[in-house]
């Protein structure tokens, strides 16, 4: 590693740590409905949204109403997106005259963008019109991210409130996330990206005559506006096929730095917001500490592995699948960040990285992206782990399991187990089916242990709503479009529904003031327990699959014994 690498990593950490309390407390103010710096600018717009949509913003919802509003909104959003993609050849802004998106690819893409997964088995430049990109995908980039934030806000309110099943108003939480947080940040981000050379135009693709006399079709489009929200909203679906590797999507080291910071910006700050919303800032800090610890360890291991050379390939460095303007360190930083957060954009091809880095990325996914999680999406996963930890720790020391003064009982634990196990089962069962069928195996690029990783990664990415790809897999087949689509649904709603049910249940409970018998959940011991539970649950579930995949691959590589 060079001095610049260390400076880049330090700058990343410093920016995240500095913005965290400011953005975190700003977001808390927004969701409490307090006056904030943007109120004079955005307040009027917010009210206009309520008026035009017929929303009574003073009315509180109980958890059932909240959940129904969310599901209805997501369902109709899916129908609209599906129609836009299917009918794009009849809609404007289609300069390349692209056809409507075929049924199963559309099924997969629609679910993918509604669930904030943004898995893509297509490439934007040869599949989607400008209209589909902006009116379909860009809009869902905003809405699915805001939906995720709304759930975490509702969860926090459930924890804070006493003996009520009301957990806020879905439309209000949604609108505030959109207008006060996602929109202003996206505008700033988009402008900075354009200054670096990200394209933003409605003109036709351009044909160039190259120096050697060949014809080259250069794809264009309104990319900067969509890439801004794609990075900020834990979406990760690229405007172009190769995502943030495409020079029009990520042209310079500075744009790369902005985009990687944007991945972690809101998710990190949300831990602070959560602490403020539940009225116990230390608890937010505990969550952040546990996440940051795992993140740092994963980053360290991956950097170490990736800066080695490949003994099976003439001791060459791991530069296959990486672009020169980023180099190894920036590529690893991005990979670990995008898999910890449920973002899923890539700036290097994970499939061609060292087996250890590929394994760490996979582990990040299968831990449910509890480490930072997405905009909303991972923090509530983390809280499921918190509930399990409180429960397990309570059993070990014989104390009543409590979190923030709320008793954790059988119902909450059952729901948390569902939220953790259903996506995990979807990963393993999906991978198993793919391994056993020619439909699954015929899509592989690599064989042997790496082929297993391609399938495991795809199902993990879909089931945990990440959306990044190990990319060797040709996922645009009916089999994968269907099975990964189902996994994305499970991964999103098998967590959101239990999370809101827990919020409702906790909100209805009495507050028990802490006593000498309470198991403390805001100290270092708890941080370590939480990390332990995450690693044990994630590790035990997936160790067999990983040892047949990445670990076997690593051993073969260093022994130079066999190529597949």
């Amino acid at each position: 590693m060079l001095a610049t690498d260390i400076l880049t990593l330090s700058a990343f950490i410093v920016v995240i740590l500095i913005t965290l309390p400011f953005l975190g407390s700003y977001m808390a103010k927004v969701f409490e409905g307090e006056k904030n710096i943007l109120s004079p600018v955005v307040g009027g717009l917010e009210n206009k949204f309520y008026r035009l949509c017929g929303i009574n913003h003073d009315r509180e919802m109980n958890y059932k109403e909240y959940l129904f509003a969310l599901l209805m909104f997501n369902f109709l959003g899916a129908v609209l997106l599906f129609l836009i993609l299917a009918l794009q050849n009849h809609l404007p802004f289609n300069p390349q005259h692209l056809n409507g998106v075929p049924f199963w690819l559309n099924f997969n893409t629609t679910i993918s963008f509604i669930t904030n997964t943004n898995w893509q088995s297509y490439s934007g430049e040869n599949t989607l019109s400008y209209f589909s990109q902006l009116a379909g995908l860009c809009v869902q980039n905003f809405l699915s991210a805001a939906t995720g934030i709304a759930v975490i806000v509702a969860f926090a309110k459930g924890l804070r409130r006493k003996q009520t099943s009301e957990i806020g108003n879905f439309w209000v939480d949604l609108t505030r996330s959109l207008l006060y947080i996602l929109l202003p940040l996206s505008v700033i981000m988009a402008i900075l990206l354009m200054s670096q050379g990200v394209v933003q135009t409605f003109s036709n693709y351009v044909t160039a005559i190259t120096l050697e006399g060949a014809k080259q079709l250069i794809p264009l489009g309104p990319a900067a506006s969509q890439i801004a929200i794609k990075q900020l909203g834990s979406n990760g679906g690229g405007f172009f096929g190769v995502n943030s590797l495409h020079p029009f999507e990520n042209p310079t080291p500075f744009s790369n730095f902005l985009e990687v910071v944007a991945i972690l910006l809101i998710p990190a700050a949300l831990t602070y917001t959560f602490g403020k919303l539940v009225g116990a800032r230390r608890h937010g800090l505990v969550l952040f500490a546990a996440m940051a610890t795992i993140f740092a360890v994963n980053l360290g291991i991956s950097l170490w592995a990736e800066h080695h050379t490949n003994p099976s390939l003439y001791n060459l460095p791991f530069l296959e699948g990486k672009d020169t303007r980023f180099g190894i360190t920036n590529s690893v930083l991005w990979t670990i960040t995008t898999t910890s957060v449920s973002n899923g954009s890539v700036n290097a091809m994970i499939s061609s990285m060292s087996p250890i880095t590929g394994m760490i990325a996979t582990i990040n996914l299968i831990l449910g992206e509890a480490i930072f999680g997405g905009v909303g999406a991972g923090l509530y996963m983390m809280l499921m782990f918190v509930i399990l930890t409180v429960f397990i720790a309570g059993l070990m020391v014989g104390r009543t399991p409590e979190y923030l003064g709320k008793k954790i009982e059988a119902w909450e634990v059952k729901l948390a187990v569902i939220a953790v196990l259903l996506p995990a089962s979807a990963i393993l069962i999906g991978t198993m089916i793919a391994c056993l069928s020619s439909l699954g195996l015929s899509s592989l690029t690599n064989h042997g242990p790496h082929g297993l990783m391609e399938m495991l990664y795809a199902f993990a990415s879909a089931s945990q709503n990440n959306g990044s790809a190990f990319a060797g897999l040709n996922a645009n087949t009916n089999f994968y479009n269907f099975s990964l689509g189902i996994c994305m649904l499970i991964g999103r709603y098998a967590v959101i529904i239990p999370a809101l049910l827990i919020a409702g249940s906790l909100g209805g409970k009495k507050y028990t003031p802490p006593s000498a018998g309470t198991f403390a959940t805001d100290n270092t011991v708890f941080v370590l327990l939480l990390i332990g539970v995450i690693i044990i649950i994630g590790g035990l579930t997936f160790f067999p699959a990983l040892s047949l995949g990445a670990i076997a691959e690593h051993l073969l590589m260093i022994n130079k014994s066999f190529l597949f």
Partner: protein
Amino acid sequence: MGKNFLISLKYLVISTLFFGFIYTFAITGVGYVFFKNKVKGSLIENNGTVIGSRLIQQNFSDPKFFWGRPSASNFETMPSGASNYGAISKDLKKNVDDRVNNIKKFYPNIKIEDIPPELLLASGSGLDPHISLNTALFQVDRIMKARKLPKIKREVILTLINKHTRKIQIDFLGEPRVNVLGLNIEMEKVLNGK
């Protein structure tokens, strides 16, 4: 139920208008005012015809040009892509062997560890516009020979490389990198044009 349906519907229409159209058009407007060349793809024109984009690599296989990173998708743009071969892939090794053999045509006795790895391993985007300084310098001998240039012209080429090298950004981001297309265009002009 019915009420949620109606609100959802209105909300979707309004947010499609607002976050789809108004937002995208506003950003496009800002881009056209302040970064016109960049948002239109950093295109390079010569006598009214587009000869490429500063950010999109072209296929250079002629020994008289600087070569960029190999492209797994053979510089296809619709879409571009990477090999995605893993660390113990036979196919990756075969690709590397082929590239080594191609380079040996120009440097018959070279050992593999002396070839810049960037010329042996394909980029991730398939369109990587840059190479590192070392990779550019490595190619100077080949280019001199292919163009049958006298030794004194070496300085000219080195100056051009230097001119098309982007320094480290804001003092800590990235490594110095050479824009291959920009360099080749100017080299053509300087060496042939007068």
